């Protein structure tokens, strides 16, 4: 008897709230409902990420062995290891760093410390935003046209690195610039008033304080470069190479491209090896992500401002 009347009053309350949604009780319920909906949405975003990582991990671990990581592929990739792909990705990431890091940090320093807000500076910013938005396959086309063909570098680590560098440039520039700008302006004023030149101020104080932020940006940028397939499709990637690359002008295998080919174009490819390759690539990429995040949080804790 009590349960029924309890439910009755609850229903009566709900009807009252719907009729008059401006009471604080109604507003409270709307808020509860709304917050619940938002948490659900956030879960939809987050849960698949974890699921993907866990799934690849579980499926790929059986393939991981010393031979897998350090051996060469055999039987048309169906057995053996993926060392050349790992080495190739490593070289490409290194090559990208060599070109994009100095250029990117230099550009960021220019924008943050030297440039005044005029038409030219706005043009630079638009150019950077543009570079950031260009589809990766268009970078591949450009790399093919300029580096592989026009400059006659052939399908090589050099061509691939140059292409990836231009692609990575906007990420490095924007994060580095933000890191430099976040250093308090008062430091610059004090340094100048003590008789330092602008470059001395940058070198001794600004760059030093912005370094963790810059580093985080660099690592995140390189992480993207390591995982990209389209830009290297026509500029460097090869599927089967009997030996490791010996010079920057050699073509090379690479993890993303390798995964692409073995999952779409090789019949009878053992699933285990596909997942193993995916896992190694994931490990590479997420490892960099983790390093970047750690640098960022530790630097924030140790900041002297």
């Amino acid at each position, binding site marked *: 008897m009590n349960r029924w009347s309890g439910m009755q009053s609850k229903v009566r309350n709900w009807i009252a709230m719907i009729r008059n949604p401006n009471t604080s009780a109604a507003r409270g319920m709307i*808020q509860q409902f709304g917050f619940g909906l938002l948490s659900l949405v956030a879960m939809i975003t987050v849960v698949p*990420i974890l699921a993907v990582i866990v799934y690849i991990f579980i499926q790929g671990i059986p393939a991981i062995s010393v031979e897998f990581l350090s051996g060469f592929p055999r039987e048309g990739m169906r057995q053996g290891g993926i060392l050349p792909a790992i080495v190739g990705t490593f070289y490409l990431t290194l090559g990208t760093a060599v070109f994009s890091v100095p250029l990117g940090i*230099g550009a960021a320093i*220019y924008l943050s410390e030297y440039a005044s807000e005029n038409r030219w500076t706005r043009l630079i910013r*638009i150019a950077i935003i543009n570079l950031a938005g260009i589809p990766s*396959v268009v970078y591949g*086309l450009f790399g093919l046209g300029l580096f592989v063909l026009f400059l006659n570098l052939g399908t090589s680590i050099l061509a691939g690195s140059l292409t990836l560098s231009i692609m990575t440039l906007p990420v490095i520039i924007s994060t580095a610039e933000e890191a430099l700008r976040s250093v308090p302006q008062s430091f610059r004023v004090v340094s100048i008033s003590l008789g330092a030149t602008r470059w001395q101020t940058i070198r001794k104080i600004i760059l030093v304080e912005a370094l963790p932020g810059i580093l985080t940006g660099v690592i995140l940028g390189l992480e993207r470069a390591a995982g990209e397939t389209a830009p290297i499709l026509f500029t460097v990637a090869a599927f089967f190479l009997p030996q490791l690359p010996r010079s920057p002008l050699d073509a090379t295998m690479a993890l993303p491209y390798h*995964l692409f080919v073995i999952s779409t174009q090789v019949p009878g490819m053992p*699933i285990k090896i596909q997942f193993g390759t995916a896992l190694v690539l994931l490990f590479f990429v997420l490892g960099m992500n983790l390093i970047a995040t750690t640098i960022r949080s530790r630097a924030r804790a140790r900041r002297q401002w």
Partner: protein
Amino acid sequence: MKINLNWSEFLITRLIKVSGYSAIIFVGLIFVFLVMEGFPALLEVPLGKLIGTRWYPIEEHFGILPLVGGSLIVTIGAAMFAIPIGIGTALFISEVSPRWARDILKPLVEMLGGLPSVVLGFLGILILAPFLRRFLDLPTGLTALAGSILLGGISIPTIVSVAEDALDAVPRSYRDAAIALGATRWQTIWRVTLPAARSGVLTAIMLGIGRAIGETMTVMMVTGNAPVLPIGLNALFQPVRTMTATIAAEMGEVANGSTHYHVLFFIGVVLFMISLVINVTASAVVFRIKNRSERILS
């Protein structure tokens, strides 16, 4: 010693200035090269056929409309589910979740953004496509829908980070003022915070869409690669082909300098233009709205 200092400082300053302008140089270079190799397509293929509806390069049919349609339908599908989920997640992280949860969620979403597209495509082939095939009773799971779902997943991190930054940048005083006037937190979000951050949120959406249009590997692996013009809602459940996938798939097999080669570069120019428009508009929105509010506040 002072002379030495001046000389090296002068040199370094020059180098820095050059790197500053390098971005412009590269954009220009890319544009020039794309046009150089893509322009001949306009000469070699009559314009009518170029915007035709048959893409069959072997028989010299270079109608790019099916490819454009493919990109469009996959992107729109992706946007339809990435935008609400992305904004909702950004709202959750910035307005609802407690501090400790935020410190876990933000890096997690960033991690999703770092996942290589080829890995997502790989999982798409192995899991999503068969699932769609069984669940929706289709002849194949490699459809526009599969592409939309994965593309949505790829765009969400972009939307979430940019939108969340924009929401975070709304001054505390706005929220405090609203609450002091008797609004609930929920009402504050929708009537005060979100409108205040709307330029940043708009930018987030545009950048997310830009990301979706430009994606290559994932779509190449799961949309089935059938260059058929997608018409009607049904097209979502059929294989399509995007512009990006076309370039990636066919570039390897074309003869250098052939018509096919030029047309592929032409498609590249089209993609370049689309991303130019989206990204410049997105940044113009931010500039313009910021200027207006600066005038109001001064």
